[in-house]
């Protein structure tokens, strides 16, 4: 039910608050503090995507001269435009982070055009210099390499050679993760398959539990996911005696026995840099990307079920990735329908722009994107 968004606190405040400054003339600039707004699509303590951002926002609050305003559970509809508008008008925000995928186009782009003096940075969007306003931009972490390492560790833990991936929607970022997980696992043992199940929504607890259960029934013994809150998947897998690789944040507390490792965001790295720039009056970068090497992404500590061989192999791969330029998707790679998706002679490293419009699943993944 998203009806609680009908009259959010902010909308009401905006309604009553907008009238007053209109009478009193232009609003006084806030003291020396730079206000930064964070917008989340779900609750900020979901053990997942939103929590990863909120944790970084909490750290940012401690920076002197920075004021953070937040709103959670904002739908990917006109709601987010209202929220952004009131953050700018009421809170005097100078820098906004709408963190969910669906906020970018058209909502954030429209707002950016409307308020050219405010900086908008979107998490995950594909900002384009030729098409989009200069006060907009995007940042994202190459977490795919984290899923690649997950895949290597998973390959050492599986006995049935069947891995599972509970995915929300077939968008590029999700598909890159599924593909990287499969590539990591199949770099250890090419006979391994990865079963992907799409639930169709970012947060659908019953479907996520059903997906995990039906994979367990099918003999899948290591599972990972890309949904907003991995709690249900991780807990269900633990109950079914499966191993899990985490995603977004550290879920090892939820599965003390079966948690192998996990790919986590480390957003504070990005936000600290952006906040420092905003405070100094400079515009933050428009297209900021980074992975394990840049510290945008980190791995959870290994769980008790990880073998020494698995650790050694994962650490070796990680060292390779940290050097930069490591390409998992190499020329001649085929998708699971047999089409060549990476042209011969080209290698896609994690930074390859082509990957940000991924629409295929690599060979070895069981599933389809439609």
């Amino acid at each position, binding site marked *: 039910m998203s*009806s609680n968004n009908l009259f959010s606190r902010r909308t009401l405040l905006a309604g009553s608050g907008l009238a007053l400054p209109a009478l009193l003339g232009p609003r006084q600039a806030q003291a020396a503090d730079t206000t930064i707004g964070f917008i989340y699509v779900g609750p900020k303590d979901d053990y997942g995507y939103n929590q990863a951002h909120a944790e970084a926002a909490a750290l940012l609050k401690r920076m002197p001269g920075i004021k953070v305003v937040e709103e959670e559970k904002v739908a990917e509809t006109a709601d987010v435009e209202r929220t952004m508008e009131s953050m700018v008008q009421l809170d005097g925000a100078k820098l906004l982070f709408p963190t969910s995928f669906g906020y970018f186009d058209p909502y954030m782009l429209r707002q950016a055009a409307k308020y050219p003096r405010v900086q908008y940075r979107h998490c995950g969007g594909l900002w384009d210099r030729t098409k989009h306003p200069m006060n907009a931009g995007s940042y994202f972490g190459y977490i795919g390499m984290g899923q690649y390492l997950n895949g290597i560790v998973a390959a050492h833990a599986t006995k049935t050679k069947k891995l599972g991936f509970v995915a929300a929607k077939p968008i590029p970022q999700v598909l890159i993760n599924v593909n990287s997980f499969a590539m990591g696992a199949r770099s250890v043992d090419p006979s391994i398959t990865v*079963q992907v199940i799409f639930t169709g929504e970012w947060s659908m607890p019953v*479907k996520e539990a059903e997906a995990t*259960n*039906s994979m367990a029934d099918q003999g899948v013994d290591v599972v990972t996911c890309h949904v907003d809150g991995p709690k249900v998947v991780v807990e269900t897998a633990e109950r079914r005696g499966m191993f899990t690789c985490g995603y977004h944040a550290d879920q090892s507390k939820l599965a003390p026995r079966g948690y192998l490792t996990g790919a986590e965001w480390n957003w504070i790295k990005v936000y600290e840099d952006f906040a420092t720039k905003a405070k100094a009056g400079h515009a933050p970068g428009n297209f900021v990307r980074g992975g394990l090497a840049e510290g945008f992404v980190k791995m959870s500590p290994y769980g008790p079920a990880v073998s020494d061989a698995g650790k050694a192999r994962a650490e070796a791969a990680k060292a390779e990735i940290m050097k930069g330029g490591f390409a998992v998707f190499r020329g001649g790679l085929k998708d699971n329908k047999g089409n060549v998706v990476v042209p011969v002679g080209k290698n896609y490293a994690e930074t390859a722009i082509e990957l940000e419009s991924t629409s295929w699943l690599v060979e070895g993944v069981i599933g389809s994107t439609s």
Partner: protein
Amino acid sequence: MDAIGTVLVAMLGGALRVSTPFLFVSLGECLTERAGRINLGNEGVMVLGAMVAYATSYETGSPWLGVLAAAGAGLLLGGLHGAICGLAKVNDVAMGIAIMLAGTGIAFFFGKPYVQPSATLLPAIPFGFWSSSPQLKNALAVSPLFLLGLATAFAMAWMFRATRLGLRVRIVGESEDAARALGLPVNRTRFFATATGSALAGIGGAFLSLVYPASWNEGLSSGQGLMAVALVVFARWNPVHCITAALLFGAAGALGPSLQTVGITWGYYLFYAAPYVVTLAILIATVRPGRTLRGMPGELSIGR
């Protein structure tokens, strides 16, 4: 195991796992509607029940206490609906929506600190102990709440058929004038039917947070309480048929994920819609213009 077997076992397991909340909430709705009132607030009651059950179980360590607390929360919220709808010129549907929003709002507000912790869950009864197949074992690990739901359905059917209390509820639901002529307290009967119905919906919510998917968060119910209204129509206001309706719904819901695991990967959005398509198809097949539904209580109307 071959693909068809896998899908069937998954659907059996899905029916047993996913159906219980539908069963409780549709039984609750059935009771309320048989007394001549609609309660759309059960969605809110379910969410509140889920939160209260999870919080109570986490704080006390006793999941059964959580179930009890959820029923209590449902009783209160349903009682509020019942009491206010008893006033003159109050519209059931509008009030139900208000209760729904209030219930989810209260649950989200007080449930914030319980999104992260892991509460003690209700244990399942392993009816699959005889089988060597782990799939079947898991599918047949039945929650005691499911059995309680079955017992409630049969008890309610018996109550409607064979007891004085059941007869009173039915008269109140069939014809207010007849009930008044007999000297029955129409408003009080509806009040108790609504409150008890919501208590059942609260238990349905407790199942969501303490049994399956066994976690409290804000997307937990995603409209299951609202589907109850359709399920009751589907079950023709008969508590025993609520079981069939809930099982069918649960099985249809398990179809999407299990088809993907056996390699049928196209059109999963379509399969996820299966439960709703089934409902729609049955409603279309059974409703004819110019005729009221068989089994529909005479006093039931959305225009009041």
